């Protein structure tokens, strides 16, 4: 990963003016929003596009000949094209819209499940006793539970990459973990708790060598740095609109065309069929096959607007800015007595999401005192309990940054932590 090589080329103060919420106060203090890994704030440009869509172009998609239906369909499919271009997908038809990352991951898990129960289905998606799925200890619950459930249903075995003391993915067992029995490897691109950025190159090479598919959970990577699905060589990625300046209710499963074509449908209903008879239905090609029912239209349009906004800044500049903030924050946090950081202590190979503990003080109490200062951080296990167990803590406090984060906000965090230590010291 590049670090600090590209100077940020945008004016953060000017950019912040695009985010109405950043102007509000919390408990009598200016809002210091350090929870973007949880959900990001939305610029006016996204809100305006969504409002304009509802006010001017609202109609259902893919099923009307009238003008509004046509405009809505163009907007919805236009968003798909923007998403495809954003991650350098070869074709827009490889982009499947859903509700969020969780649903995208579950879509793939249930495609495996359905294929496993259907004789004659594509063997790459068939799982049974003796087959293996490999994930890692640093996964979000959304990339753990669907695979646990899938393995329970099919009798396959779930295996795990470990995490090193420094918070890096431990690939030392790669060749035994990923073997001839492996059908799927699913790992996180950037950890939402440790901030670690994984380079999937070796895992992808090994997985493909043994005929396994690779899903990358891009929930924390696609919003924060340039992601090129072709360069990564993975088979699927999942990500979620609300963490990248877009609205909630829209997520993406990108998959290679040839694989999506081989996958059985998951949800059945309107819009996903080719023909329906009383005996049997046949199904539309991807992506429609995986988008049963009326999709989240305005949410997709909002995601498209968020992508326009990020593209205008440039993802390399977004990344450079966050690298600067992260380097600054790592240093500032290191100055707080008794503070321990979980995950890489250097900005290289990590993103702007920093988990930490203050010795003897529970994260709930840390978060509550910070909130009183207007500083919004997340506390808890961050839907990644295995990571907490790995480091022997029930929970952590997490500060996470984005395009609009400033060094002054990091200073406010550090001041807040001093107050925490006074109250509970």
């Amino acid at each position: 990963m590049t670090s600090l090589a590209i100077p940020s080329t945008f004016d953060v103060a000017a950019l912040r003016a695009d985010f109405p919420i950043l102007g509000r106060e919390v408990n009598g203090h200016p809002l210091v929003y350090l929870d973007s890994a949880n959900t990001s704030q939305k610029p006016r440009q996204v809100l305006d596009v969504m409002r304009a869509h509802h006010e001017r172009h609202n109609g259902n998609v893919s099923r009307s000949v009238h003008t509004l239906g046509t405009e809505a369909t163009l907007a919805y499919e236009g968003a798909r094209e923007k998403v495809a271009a954003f991650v350098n997908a070869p074709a827009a038809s490889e982009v499947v819209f859903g509700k969020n990352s969780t649903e995208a991951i579950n879509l793939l898990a249930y495609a495996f499940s359905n294929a496993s129960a259907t004789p004659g289905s594509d063997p790459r998606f068939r799982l049974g006793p003796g087959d293996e799925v490999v994930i890692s200890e640093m996964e979000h619950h959304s990339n753990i539970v669907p695979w646990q459930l899938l393995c329970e249903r099919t009798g396959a075995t779930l295996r795990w990459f470990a995490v090193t003391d420094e918070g890096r993915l431990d690939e030392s067992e790669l060749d035994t973990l990923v073997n001839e029995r492996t059908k799927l490897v699913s790992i996180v691109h950037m950890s939402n708790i440790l901030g670690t950025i994984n380079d999937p190159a070796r895992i992808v090479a090994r997985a493909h060598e043994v005929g396994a598919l690779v899903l990358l959970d891009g929930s924390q990577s696609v919003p924060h740095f340039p992601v090129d699905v072709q360069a990564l060589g993975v088979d699927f990625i999942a990500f979620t609109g609300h963490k990248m300046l877009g609205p909630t209710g829209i997520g993406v499963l990108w998959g290679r065309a040839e694989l999506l074509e081989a996958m059985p449908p998951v949800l059945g209903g309107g819009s996903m069929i080719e023909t329906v008879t009383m005996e049997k239905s046949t199904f539309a090609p991807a992506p429609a096959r995986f988008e049963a029912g009326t999709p989240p239209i305005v949410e997709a349009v909002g995601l498209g607007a968020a992508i326009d906004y990020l593209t205008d800044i440039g993802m390399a500049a977004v990344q450079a800015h966050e690298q600067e903030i992260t380097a600054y924050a790592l240093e500032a946090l290191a100055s707080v007595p008794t503070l321990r950081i979980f995950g890489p202590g250097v900005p290289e190979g990590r993103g702007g999401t920093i988990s930490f503990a203050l010795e003897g003080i529970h994260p709930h109490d840390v978060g509550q005192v910070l909130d009183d200062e207007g500083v919004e951080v997340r506390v808890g296990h961050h839907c990644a309990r295995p990571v907490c167990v790995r480091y022997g803590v029930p929970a952590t406090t997490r500060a996470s940054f984005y395009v609009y984060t400033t060094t002054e906000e990091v200073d406010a965090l550090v001041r807040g932590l001093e107050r925490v230590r006074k109250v509970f010291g």
Partner: protein
Amino acid sequence: MQFDQLYQEIILEHYKRPHGRGLREPFGGEAHHVNPTCGDEVTIRVAVAGDKLADVSYEGMGCSISQASASVLHDLLATLPVDEAFKVHDAFVELMQGRGQVEPDEELLGDGVAFSGVARYPARVKCALLPWMAFKDAAVRAGVTVGPEVKA
């Protein structure tokens, strides 16, 4: 200021110097409760002698609110007659679920009134209630009959 009502001195005192902490023998019932959103944990043991509680002992880890609440619970209930213990229990639960609208009975709740401020922070009510819910389960396991169902 709301915040000072949340972290009242009494709560911080109980947190820093908990009363009656540690699991003790003998006991009639034990319960272990976890708050899945934050990982707070508490184990409560209840010992009964006739129609009185003989001891309430506990161990736990978590935030100041949940751990101070366990300490206060011990102070209030450890040797009360069973029916009175449940009166206190119900009053504490009512206070916590009252969104800050319930006037606490100081006579009944003692240091427990310090938790009134917590009721205004919905995210923290579960922390305060954790030991009390565990107490109720432990009491049932110790063979004590209890009042109507309460929802955490």
